[in-house]
């Protein structure tokens, strides 16, 4: 039991000492992943599990034809990345992102959301 306590304590100590460094996972998004929103959003906001390196993180939003509908350069603050959108008609939109967390791990992903009823 003492060995188990020691092992758990050591693990927790290690976790605490490295708590700001890991792959950045997408925690949630606005609009939500796979959701349908009744009115067109003005921007897409991605919330990550780690802080991001702004120079090496990017986002792209495109319509069903593959045409870009975002306004370009994203704004990044800590673990949040957002990009403005053009006026979106009803339809399906694809968000593709790549980010670099502060410890240099790269992650990427994509998801869709729908505008309209």
């Amino acid at each position, binding site marked *: 039991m003492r060995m188990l306590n020691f092992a758990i304590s050591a*693990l927790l100590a*290690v*976790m605490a000492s*490295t708590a700001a*460094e*890991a*792959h950045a*996972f*997408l925690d*949630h*998004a606005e609009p*939500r*992943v*796979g*959701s349908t929103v009744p009115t067109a959003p003005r921007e897409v906001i991605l919330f990550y*599990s*780690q802080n991001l*390196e702004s*120079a*090496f*993180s*990017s986002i*792209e939003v495109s319509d069903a034809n593959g045409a870009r509908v975002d306004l370009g350069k994203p704004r990044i603050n800590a673990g949040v990345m957002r990009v403005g959108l053009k006026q979106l008609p009803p339809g*399906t939109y694809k968000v*593709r992102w*790549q*980010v*670099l967390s502060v*410890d*240099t*791990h*790269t*992650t*990427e*992903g*994509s*998801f*869709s959301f729908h505008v309209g009823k």
Partner: protein
Amino acid sequence: MSRHLLRSLALANFIALAFTSHALAHCFVGARFLPATLATDDPCVADEMSMPTVTRVKTPDMPPAVEWDISGDFSKRITENFGVTISQTWTHIRQPDGTLTTGFQNLGTAFQFQVMKDRSHEFALLTGLNVDWGHTGSTGSGLADTFSRITPTISFGKGFGDLPDSFSWIRAFAVTGQAGYQIPTNSFDFTQNVFIPQQLVYGASLQYSMPYLKSEVIDLQLPEFFNHLIPIVEASFTTPVANNFGNPYTTTGTINPGVIWVGSYFQVALEAVIPINRESGSGVGVLGQLHLYLDDMFPTTVGRPLFGGTSTPPRKLTF
């Protein structure tokens, strides 16, 4: 040496081969994260450590003996695409009459090369050479062989995220698989007076990623605990294929349904161990593992390749 003990030792050897002689890697392929699997290998090299992996099973004997295996392994990338794993297992077998057999299995190593990672198709391919070194364990107690076993192996992983969006929740599935040809360095065991067969060692996993479902398909706003789960079914088999004169060509193995909880720095897994036949064990066993992602815990020291700089050097990201 009793017949019961021999069967127990054979099972212990199978457990050791199945659970400890392969690398367990932190595996990203595009948007897909393939967790470290327990009974089979995943298809990536990485800097990781499993400490401990604990297995409790009952041997095929009548009445069965109870076997505990406690193992650990350490995986280290030498370069970005080449890694080495060292593994060791301590085994404890208690016979129904109370007789105890304890000791270490042979030391296991794996030398692995990442052949490819196709991000867009979530596909990874790995080749490896697994070696269990003879005379490095408790040969006196019969738990370790006096000869080595060499197993060229190939492993793959495939996520289904590249399916069209219309496949919806099916896209969160992934499969992994591996196959190896095990060659012992001795062909005959004079202590037990039996041939030592060459064996096909193979297995697969089917897994469903709740993290992938949430971040790539649909955010169901489930409680956070469930968003970290990866339900999984693993299967691991061994079939003698050559130099097995006088013995049945019986396939042994287990089916392991379970679940993996994935965090940012570690994962915890629990699986049932279901023997596929009488020769593979008695009743349902259990397998648990704590697995540490060293590349996330120590990204600037042990979590990076020895040669070749950082694991993922900063680059301008493009789609």
